[in-house]
């Protein structure tokens, strides 16, 4: 028998940290998924066993645990794998790696406990502020401190990968950056740029306000700073999924990545365009001029480009695999793909759902058509296709490949894995489609009881009861799928026996490699500079105008007006003030 060459054999120390990160991620998935079922049944009035005011605590925990904890812990695990595997060297100091993992964990604990305080009387805290934590909702300081610790932990993780790359570059001065590392680094660059927004929002405004140091905040300013981070964060979740589609899916299909240069262009476009788009979440916010919203919309529409490029490149890579496996014809090559492999099928179905999410995203992005769906259940349907399937299902599917790499053990039951990923796809088809439809006739999001006296929603097709039934059924199937996944992972880790049949730790080769693209693509400084300039163009005037109109700390305490023009009425007012 040939010597096994899995990730755990190559990098045993790093494998331990990645396992810890993935398990943190899975725990968040299990808790967050369960809470999702409670919400699904409560909202649709199928089963209500919590008081409606507790719905918002549950909703906050569901959002934070799934879109922050689950996704980002998985990301740091996968990026550590990507950087070490593709540079073929370990991290510089494993204690530092454990350090950022510990910091992220401590942050999560603080956030989790403060949210839990909303339903447990013994915990004297409260953070029912939903994932978006808009003021005037106010959380206990522990929530904000925990959030900051978590984000700073990710910054340190990024530094860990950068310095591993710097060390590699010293030894390989003339080499192109290996693709997985290139993807991790470009993703981190826009993450650094965009998370400054949430850091300022928390450290300068929300935390001092929660501690009682300042009396009030400017809600529009903190909202805008939130969305400065809040849209790029969706690409922060998505980029590890893209990385897996580009580097794993072609290999699992039996082929090679169609084009390495196209993949690099896609990640460069995300680096440039992820941040100057956040205002598209605020199309209905008064206080931001339509022109600024139009700039955000234009940038957003450009962002469709890298996703459409991805659809082409990834499908072309799968087709290459299918044809190498003997597939023929215009479309019958699809049958030659390895549909019995849960890692492949899960990722392919996730990509298919992302194509549907792409359409609803185009609707959300349109300045005028957004009015139709804004704050409705449509939006919830949309992001359950994107983060809730494109990202979540890809991560679960990839775990069927990664957990054996990280433990040296075979998956406990691969057939169950296949059932699990298909069940997710079916459950989400029911739930997300029903949510989209519900949003079109105005059923709101973020509402415990969207049933009103003396008023009924009027769907053009079907009934509200039928839509509610689909959502409840979908939520139940999704939760079942999560439990099947967790069961499989637990039994693999504690019950499975070590196997020599684990495949080598590799990622997909390329049909067209980096040598086919100009070296400027790898110039991270150039792309980062362009990203910064675009952010300045998109945000400086809106932020100045928001501060000018509402004050830096809101209208509650003396506003500071950084107006560049002397306002004659203010001069008159101050003159009046000193006159007897």
């Amino acid at each position, binding site marked *: 028998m040939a010597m096994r060459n899995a990730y755990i054999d190559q990098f045993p120390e790093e494998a331990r940290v990645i396992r810890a990160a993935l398990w943190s991620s899975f725990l968040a998935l299990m808790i967050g998924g369960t809470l999702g079922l409670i919400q699904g049944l409560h909202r649709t009035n199928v089963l209500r066993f919590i008081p409606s005011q507790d719905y918002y605590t549950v909703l906050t925990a569901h959002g934070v645990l799934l879109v922050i904890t689950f996704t980002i812990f998985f990301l740091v695990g996968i990026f550590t794998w990507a950087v070490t*595997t*593709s*540079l*073929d060297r370990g991290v510089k100091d494993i204690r530092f790696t454990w350090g950022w993992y510990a910091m992220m964990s401590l942050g999560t604990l603080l956030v989790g406990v403060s949210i839990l305080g909303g339903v447990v009387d013994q915990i004297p805290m409260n953070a029912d502020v939903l994932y978006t934590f808009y003021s005037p909702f106010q959380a206990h300081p522990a929530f904000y401190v925990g959030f900051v610790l978590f984000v700073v932990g990710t910054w340190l993780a990024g530094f860990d990968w950068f310095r591993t790359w710097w060390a590699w570059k010293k030894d390989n001065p003339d*080499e192109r950056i*290996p*693709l997985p590392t290139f993807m991790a680094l470009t993703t981190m660059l826009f993450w650094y740029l965009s998370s400054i927004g949430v850091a300022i929002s928390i450290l300068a405004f929300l935390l001092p306000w929660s501690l009682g140091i300042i009396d009030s905040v400017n809600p529009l300013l903190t909202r805008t700073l939130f969305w400065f981070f809040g849209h790029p964060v969706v690409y922060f979740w998505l980029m590890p999924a893209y990385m897996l589609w580009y580097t794993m899916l072609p*290999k*699992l299909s*039996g*082929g*090679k990545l*169609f084009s390495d240069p196209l993949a690099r262009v896609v990640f460069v476009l995300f680096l440039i365009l992820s941040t100057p788009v956040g205002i598209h979440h605020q199309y209905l916010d008064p206080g931001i001029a339509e022109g600024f919203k139009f700039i955000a919309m234009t940038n957003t529409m450009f962002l469709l480009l890298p996703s459409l490029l991805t*659809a*082409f490149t990834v*499908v*072309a890579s799968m*087709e*290459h695999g*299918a*044809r*190498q*496996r*003997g597939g023929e*014809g*215009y*479309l019958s*090559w*699809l049958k*030659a793909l*390895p549909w*019995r*492999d849960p*890692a*492949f099928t899960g990722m392919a179905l996730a990509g298919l759902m992302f*194509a549907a999410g792409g*359409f609803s995203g*185009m*609707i959300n992005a349109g300045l*005028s*058509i957004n*009015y*139709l769906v804004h704050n409705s259940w449509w939006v919830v349907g949309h992001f359950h296709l994107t983060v809730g399937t494109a990202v979540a299902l890809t991560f679960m599917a990839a775990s069927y490949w990664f957990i054996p790499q990280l433990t040296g053990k*075979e998956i406990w039951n*691969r057939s169950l894995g296949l059932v699990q990923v298909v069940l997710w796809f079916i459950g989400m088809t029911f739930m997300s489609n029903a949510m989209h439809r519900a949003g*079109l006739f105005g059923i709101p999001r973020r509402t415990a009881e969207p049933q009103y006296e003396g008023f009924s929603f009027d769907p*053009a097709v079907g009934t509200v009861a039928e839509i509610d039934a689909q959502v409840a059924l979908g939520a139940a199937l999704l939760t079942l799928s999560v439990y099947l996944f967790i069961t499989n992972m637990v039994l693999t880790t504690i019950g499975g026996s070590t196997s020599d*049949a684990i*495949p*080598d*730790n*590799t*990622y*997909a*080769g*390329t*049909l*067209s*490699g980096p040598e086919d693209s100009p070296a400027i693509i790898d110039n991270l400084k150039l792309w980062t500079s362009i990203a910064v300039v675009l952010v300045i163009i998109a945000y400086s005037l809106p932020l100045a105008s928001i501060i000018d109109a509402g004050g830096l700390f809101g209208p509650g305490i003396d506003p500071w007006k950084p107006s560049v023009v002397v306002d004659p009425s203010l001069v008159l007012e101050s003159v009046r003030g000193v006159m007897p």
Partner: protein
Amino acid sequence: MSSAIEKGVDGKHPTDETDQVRELDHDEYDPIGTAILVGIYFLILVALWIFMYFIEFLGNGPTVTGVLLTVVGLA
């Protein structure tokens, strides 16, 4: 180039039902199936956009106010 990428296709993967039967290089491979799928996706998007016109402007009445757009919405 790193050693990992040189290893290329993972032929040992336990769930590969059928092994690779041929090697297609860059010039031999023509992604016609991908072009067809992308074309179908494009047609779906166009159909959905047309559908959205009926929902947005004819189903719910105008949601964008202003003389010109209101007239378009009522049309």
